[in-house]
């Protein structure tokens, strides 16, 4: 596992982590009830990390495990979670999911997307399109922190999911939202959010993404 966001030498034209994990069925992981996307994205990545490391049994992450982790991290006010703090909590002490305590080995600080603003010139924190694609392959998906534009909400069922690709880059931002990117194709990137697969263009991603985070899995589950 590389900690560098540099692109692989040769990238496939399209890729999706889920193509190699046909048994994984997208779930909401309490996102509809807790209104929390951070632990839901973590749950999505947890099952794929397991699958990618050779385990064929998909962990059955219970809703109660998701809720317990959310409440433990969100505190008494239920005001949402800071994704970088949550990744740190996933590393230490880890989270109890699918019946066992799970930890990641490492995670990145927020990475910049090309076109998202002035880049730093630091090759370890700036992601080009190819570098993001490479990162998805290397790290079994990446988590992205978005400032979603107005109109895209869980309550508006026609604003997301299959057939509702995210392409419009003209609107103001409204809702801060974390999701797991699992792949890409010729039209852009593919992720999982609110229990369904979501397509978005590179222009949309670079406009509304505020940070990209990769994780590496621990040797133990």
């Amino acid at each position, binding site marked *: 596992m590389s900690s560098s966001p540099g692109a692989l030498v040769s990238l496939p034209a399209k890729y999706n982590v889920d193509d190699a994990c046909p048994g994984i069925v997208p779930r909401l992981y309490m996102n509809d009830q807790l209104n929390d996307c951070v632990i839901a994205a973590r749950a999505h990545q947890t099952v794929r990390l397991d699958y990618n490391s050779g385990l064929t049994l998909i962990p059955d992450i219970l809703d109660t495990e998701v809720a317990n982790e959310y409440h433990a991290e969100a505190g008494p*006010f239920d005001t949402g979670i800071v994704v970088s703090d949550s990744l740190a909590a996933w590393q230490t002490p880890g989270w109890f999911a699918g019946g066992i305590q799970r930890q990641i080995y490492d995670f990145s600080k927020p990475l*910049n997307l090309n076109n998202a603003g002035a880049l*730093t010139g630091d090759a370890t924190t700036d992601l080009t399109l190819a570098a993001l694609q490479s990162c998805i392959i290397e790290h079994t998906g990446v988590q992205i922190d978005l400032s979603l534009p107005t109109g895209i909400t869980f309550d508006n069922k026609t604003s997301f999911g299959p057939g509702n690709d995210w392409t419009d880059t003209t609107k103001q931002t409204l809702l801060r939202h974390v999701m797991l990117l699992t792949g890409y194709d010729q039209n852009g990137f593919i992720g999982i959010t609110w229990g369904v697969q979501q397509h978005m263009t590179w222009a949309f991603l670079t406009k509304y993404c*505020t940070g990209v985070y990769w994780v590496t899995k621990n040797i133990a589950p």
Partner: protein
Amino acid sequence: MMTELKRVHVTIAVLTLIFTSSPANAQKSKASASTAAPASAAPAATSTSNAPLEIEMLSYGALDKIIEKIATYACNTAYPGGPYNGVVVLDAPALQALQAYDGFSVNAKALAVNFAAMQGTSGGGSGIDDFADITSAVSAAATASTSETSFSFTIQDPTAALVMLHHLQSQTSSVCKTAAYAGVYGADEATPQTLHGVTITSTSDQLKGLAMLRINALKAIMTAGQSTAPATRNAAGCAPVPSQALVAGTTFYPFPAQDPCLTAFSNLDTSYNTFLQSLSGANAATNQPILSSVMQGYHLRAALASGTTAKPLLGIYVNIAAAGGTQQDRKNLITAVITGDWIRYSGGVSVNVIVFKIANGATAQTDQSLILYSDLLRYRTPLGHVKSPARYDNAPEAGDNLNSVP
């Protein structure tokens, strides 16, 4: 003939004297209102009454009759609506404490949401917590009840609740015998209750959580402000714009004093400090520290939240609306010459009563809470005398108590 005429005149004169009442003959219906100190429904530190003790005793007796009736109703007639898992007695201070906790929680959540936004949380979490339940209706009814301003004297708030507890304990129902009131609601902070999916969080946990959110928000915007990387600056809700030059000898960028992000945090911090200071103030009605009311309100809120459709609670709200009495002083020739004034007393009380079932569902829509009975009950004793205590031993008449000195 003259003798008979004189006898008639004397008889008329005597009768005139007998039946000519003195100026004090009229009943002084709530007469002491003009001299009694104004009272409120809130508990007073001491009684402000200047009414005769006999009137007060008769009024307390009237209160006892009303409360006994309600206790019997609650533990028998109302019981088919059960089975109940417990009985909670409420009065005006208890409702004030409940409202103090609810208000505290709403304010704390509002501050928390703002600090969290500055910290850069993803996912909105829930909105402002809504603790509305059957007690909201009880509070509204209590607020809307008629307030008498001509009390002869004030019966302090806990009195009605204490009398109610006494009569509940006299009932055969084991649930009524263990009725809860005030500080004995017994909420368990380790396993918090929920109401409609919202956790009833203790006051201390909310204050601690708020302090952590404030610190984390400050750390987040400071970290963001020290970076030029877009993603790092985006990680917080806002990032100060640093000066171009590093502080000499350090790796820190200075921020302009009027930076909008820092100003926003500073304004929010002012609200936070004002909120904390308000907790140290005294409740105008009860003179208790506001924080004490809030903490008591938490226990009450948690106790009320434990009433579910499967295991409902029975709530009894009692609040004395008015208490007073009459002193009748009759004067005539006989009283002037032989017996002294003929004085009789009457006492009465009016009590707001609401008996209600607390049966919270998983959501507000599935609640089965309802008001079983509500009324303003009144009771006035007839004019009479206060009897001597049963088995009176004359000890109170002793001229000294020097024997009590060891």
